[in-house]
């Protein structure tokens, strides 16, 4: 199928801690950079989609950009927010309603694990009183079971985190830019067995923006349009092992990530064997390991060998989280998935600098996963 939607510009406000800047301010900076990258003006933008957790109305950014009266829809799907924003922007262009639009994500979180009222997630209050309403515990439990079932070692978790910190060192936009040894990672405080402190990402601040246009018009703006071949969002099915579940049924099925991934491959007419560069949701090192299999890049258990052999390094056959992923960048929820797109676009253009994957990568893949069991996948290509 011919691609219908192209990405012609990306922009990022670095991720980290920025006193004195609001989430909206960072969003405006990311938008300006994406517009400059695309070579278009704000007044050319015909519609926009915004995503944020902390900012109720990302559309308020128009006060900083220019009051042009466009349709500006705010979306939110937890950690998968960017996938919803991209999917909606792409849909708007596919419908022919508009030719040129923008997706932007922004957030500014306080430090520490996220907290919320369990009842707003259809969980009873006692679930929070008992100390169960916490996402990191789910990630510990999921990888702990996975390690037992598929023979993954603690060292593999440390290798994943160490790789992402290393990639962060060569990413000027990253939050954590210091290499950590596998020993330091393994020996940091245990948070949720087997996950230690340095195996987790942390909430932070930042913004990212993407300019999209109708595929046929992309060459008016750029010599290297990046086509958005698929962007899918799926919620959990009954029997999937997902976050914030006081109980699970006896029957088991695959998680939302597998569903979103399969749907995206089918829409794109692209398979995992065609993918050259990958961004996965590494809320923690274990998530990256599991997501390798859930997104079709290897059979369950093969990660142990692949990671030991360096296959997921920038120079490997399956380069994963080349910009350091969530572990090095932290997670401003609304922006995180568009950071992934930013990295893939630069990789496919060949402009990723020190992080450039060799061999002219042509196909990129991104995946998001978060509460309450929602996943998003996008596939991009030259």
């Amino acid at each position, binding site marked *: 199928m011919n691609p219908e939607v192209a990405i012609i510009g990306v922009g990022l406000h670095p991720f980290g801690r920025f006193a004195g800047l609001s989430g909206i301010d960072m969003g405006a900076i990311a938008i300006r950079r994406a517009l400059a990258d695309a070579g278009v003006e704000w007044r050319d933008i015909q519609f926009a989609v915004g995503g944020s957790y902390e900012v109720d109305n990302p559309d308020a950014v128009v006060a900083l950009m220019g009051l042009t009266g466009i349709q500006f829809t705010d979306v939110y799907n937890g950690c998968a927010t960017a996938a919803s924003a991209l999917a909606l922007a792409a849909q708007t262009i596919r419908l022919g309603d508009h030719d040129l639009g923008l997706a932007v994500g922004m957030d500014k979180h306080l430090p520490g694990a996220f*907290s919320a009222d369990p009842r707003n997630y259809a969980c009873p209050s006692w679930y929070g009183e*008992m*100390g169960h309403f916490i996402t990191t515990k789910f990630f510990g439990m999921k990888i702990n079971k996975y390690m037992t079932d598929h023979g993954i070692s603690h060292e593999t978790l440390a290798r994943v985190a160490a790789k992402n910190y290393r990639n962060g060192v060569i990413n000027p936009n990253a939050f954590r830019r210091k290499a950590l040894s596998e020993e330091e990672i393994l020996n940091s405080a245990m948070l949720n067995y087997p996950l230690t402190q340095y195996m987790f990402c942390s909430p932070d601040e930042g913004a990212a923006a993407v300019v999209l246009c109708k595929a046929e018009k992309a060459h008016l703006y750029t010599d290297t349009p990046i086509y958005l071949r698929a962007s899918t969002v799926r919620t959990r099915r009954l029997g999937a092992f997902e976050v914030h579940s006081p109980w699970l049924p006896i029957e088991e099925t695959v998680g939302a990530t597998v569903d979103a991934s399969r749907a995206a491959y089918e829409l794109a007419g692209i398979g995992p064997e065609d993918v050259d560069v990958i961004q996965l949701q590494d809320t923690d090192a274990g998530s990256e390991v599991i997501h390798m299999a859930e997104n079709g890049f290897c059979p369950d258990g093969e990660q142990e060998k692949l990671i030991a052999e360096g296959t997921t390094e920038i120079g490997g056959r399956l380069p994963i989280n080349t910009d350091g992923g969530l572990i090095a960048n932290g997670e401003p929820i609304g922006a995180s998935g568009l950071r992934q797109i930013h990295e893939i676009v630069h990789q496919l253009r060949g402009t990723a600098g020190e992080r450039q994957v060799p061999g002219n990568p042509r196909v990129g893949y991104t995946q998001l996963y978060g509460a309450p069991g929602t996943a998003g996948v996008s596939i991009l290509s030259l």
Partner: protein
Amino acid sequence: MAQVPLAAGLFSWPSDDPRLLGSECSACAMVTFPSQDSCPRCALTEMVSKPLARRGRLWAWTTQNFPPPSPPYAGASGKDFKPFAVGYVELSGEVKVEARLMETDPAKLQNGMEMELVIVPLGKNTDGDDIVTFAFTAC
């Protein structure tokens, strides 16, 4: 001081044979915990209450080594916080239930091990009563 359950309808209490209280769909036999009004499989609203089996096998587990930030956590926090273990226990043919585990040493926890329901103290409520909740222990 009285012992009060964490929530009404969660488990039979006081009781010599305490049971978790779930529900079962009359249409498709789906079992849930806690009880709910509608079936998450067939979406019909024909759920009847069902006391669950006392025993099961550990299906997945981890530890909680820092005080849960999510308000309100009813256990001791700050310096008094004690790390605990948590897991899903599969009650054969019924449902997997997420619960606190009495054993907290990772070396002694193993998927598949047999476990049994116990009712244990969690903390105190504002009246000074002991709040009790459900947990599983090896058996």
